[in-house]
């Protein structure tokens, strides 16, 4: 109970004061990441306590006055060496297996319903929705700049708000194609569990399936110049109906 309350305070789509744990997940990828994290923390706790216990007991029991005989010629023991080599190897396999499973599951973009193209610039993100065209073969295209501190409405998040948010329908498989125009950037959103570097001349894809409506914030995650901290990412997930209404408004101008 205590632990639950404690974690509730720590666990924090947007960063909150003293948020030390993950932000709330909004996609299957992020749930997988949290699960893997908890899984590995379990092994980590065991290792931490075992090693600490061994160190403390060694320090306590093998002081010069408690154990005055130095075993000069006792310098290897095959059995214990086998144990302390093979057992960590097994622990590493136990960690590696779920890790690789998650890695390949997250890499998979099987059958997306729409594509959002995100391009990093110094220092803003621009977006394209190439799947929706009007009669003139034009598609939605916009830039997404940070809202400066002086223009924030009261209550908005400093250094995280943008003028044009990315609108993605919830419960829809979306392929985000990520690239950059000038230097390397990185497109990241913690509560969706995505982070992919944006390279000029290369297209990286990330799969997104948002399972609840909400607003999710992220930041550029590869140092890209002086305003690296001022190119945030804001993704808003809405119902399909609202998405289509938004699309219509965008297309009709």
């Amino acid at each position, binding site marked *: 109970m205590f632990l639950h309350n404690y974690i509730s305070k720590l666990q924090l789509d947007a960063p909150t004061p003293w948020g030390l744990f993950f932000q709330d997940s909004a996609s299957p990828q992020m749930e997988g990441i949290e699960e893997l994290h908890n899984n590995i923390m379990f092994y980590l706790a065991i290792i931490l306590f075992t090693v600490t216990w061994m160190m403390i007991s060694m320090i306590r029991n093998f002081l010069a006055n408690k154990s005055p005989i130095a075993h000069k010629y006792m310098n290897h023991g095959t059995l214990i060496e086998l144990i302390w080599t093979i057992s960590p190897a097994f622990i590493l396999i136990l960690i590696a297996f779920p890790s690789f499973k998650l890695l390949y599951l997250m*890499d998979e*973009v*099987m*059958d*997306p*319903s*729409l*594509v959002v*193209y995100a*391009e990093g610039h110094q220092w803003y993100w621009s977006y*394209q929705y*190439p*799947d929706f065209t009007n009669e003139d073969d034009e598609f939605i*295209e*916009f830039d997404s700049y940070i809202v400066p501190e002086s223009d924030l409405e009261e209550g908005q998040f400093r250094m995280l708000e943008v*003028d*044009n*948010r990315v*609108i993605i329908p919830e419960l829809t498989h979306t*392929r985000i*194609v990520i*690239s950059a*125009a000038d230097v390397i950037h990185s497109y990241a959103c913690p509560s969706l569990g995505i982070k*992919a570097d944006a390279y000029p*001349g*290369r*297209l*990286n*894809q*990330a799969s997104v399936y948002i399972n609840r409506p909400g607003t999710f914030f992220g930041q550029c995650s590869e140092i890209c110049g002086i305003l690296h901290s001022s190119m945030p990412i804001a993704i*808003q997930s*809405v119902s*399909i*109906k*609202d998405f*289509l*209404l*938004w699309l*219509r*408004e*965008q297309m009709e101008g």
Partner: protein
Amino acid sequence: MGAIPEADPDEVLETKPFKFVTGYDARFPQQNQTKHCWQNYVDYYKCTTAKGEDFRPCKQFYHAFRSLCPKAWTDRWDGQREAGNFPVHLDK
């Protein structure tokens, strides 16, 4: 821009399933999709060069690269094709 418009309660909205062609391509299973975009662009223009603009099966390549490639890339390649320095022979 950005704000979600209010729905008109009197308007009858009909939501149809939507789905676009650029699904999974087993030749490009990785995160890097650069050549997925590129291959479809090349295939489309090879297809239309061989079969003519109105050959409908070519359209699938068009939809694929249209969906994957950044506009700036296809614009540059279009320019190269017109200038004759596109790095692939599209008629072979």
